[in-house]
């Protein structure tokens, strides 16, 4: 979209985003949506929802939705740049903090801060679910499918892959 190098835009965007992504990848999904769809117009709303679905369906950490966003912006180099920018800085940060804290005689602050972040990260995850539901559940059947999967996955220990597969089959059959 802009004259700048798109690779650099990806690296700066996701590198910065990862540092604020407390609560994991799911918590960062609304921000990814805002940046990729509303700010930079890298993808349409539909493309973003599809990318989220592909990331859920494929193996590996769900954060790899950034690989798809990166590919949409700048092909294979974009995919790799976005993935590393999202994952490497915080992994190194975690490494250093872990070495720092992994010493005897630590204070109670680490536990306190962690406890303080729990409700925030759950709130963020709930916001992700809400935003994604708004962009995917456009019909009653779709809403129903989401609700049924949510209930089944909450009360049973079924492998999530089966539920994704069932959703795919229902979509394939044109029901949702």
């Amino acid at each position, binding site marked *: 979209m802009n004259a700048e190098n798109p690779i650099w835009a990806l690296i700066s965007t996701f590198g910065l985003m990862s540092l604020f992504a407390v609560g994991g990848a799911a918590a960062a999904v609304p921000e990814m949506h805002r940046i990729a769809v509303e700010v930079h117009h890298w993808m349409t709303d539909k493309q973003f929802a599809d990318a989220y679905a592909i990331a859920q369906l494929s*193996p590996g*950490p769900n954060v790899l939705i950034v690989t798809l966003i990166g590919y949409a912006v700048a092909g294979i180099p974009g995919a790799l740049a976005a993935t590393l920018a999202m994952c490497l800085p915080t992994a190194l940060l975690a490494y250093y903090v872990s070495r720092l804290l992994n010493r005897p005689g630590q204070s109670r602050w680490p536990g306190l801060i962690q406890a303080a972040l729990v409700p*925030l990260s759950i709130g963020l995850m709930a916001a992700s679910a809400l935003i994604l539901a708004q962009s*995917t559940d456009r019909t009653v059947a779709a809403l129903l499918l989401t609700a049924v999967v949510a209930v089944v996955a909450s009360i049973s220990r079924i492998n*999530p892959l089966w539920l994704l597969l069932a959703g795919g089959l229902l*979509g394939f059959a044109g029901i949702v």
Partner: protein
Amino acid sequence: MSPDSAPAAHEPDIPAAQAPPPGLVALFLAFARMSLAGFGGVLVFARHAIVDQHRWMSADEFNETFALCHFLPGPNIVNLSMVFGARLRGIAGGVAAFAGLLLPPTLIMTVLAIIYARFGDVDVLRRSLAGISCAAVGLLIAVVFRMMMPLLKRMDIVVLILMVGVLVAIGVLRLPLQAVLLVAIPVSIGVTFLIGGR
């Protein structure tokens, strides 16, 4: 056990039969395997492999490590791979676990992206993806629900208000993440400190 970190005040019930630290290749392969098994999230498979299968960590050590990675920014499980690998084999081990976790799925994802870019307009694929999207959102709701349960059980009003506040600010008002966290994190730490200090 990691040779460079003295275990501080551990419970006596740590199983004596803890495996020796794995090599770099073994770390890479183990994380590649759990990553490729991890449809819809890797945590379950990571814990199974590290604690139950290979006995590289006790359940308590794993919990401590994951808790640390959860409260740091970034993708939890990616952070976990780096921290865990580094605890066992130094920074090289961290890089090996990190690469094992990310490399195979990134390649798969890139292939899928190419396929999507070429066939994304095909109606059948679109319809199937629409169905998968609905199910994926349902799975996310279920995870959020499970994580919420302990908070709901404790019925701590302040904590619930914080949680709902973030939900509304991000999910309904669509405020930027950084701005919300810049306010919410200090408030939450302050509140937790006051409650815990009593």
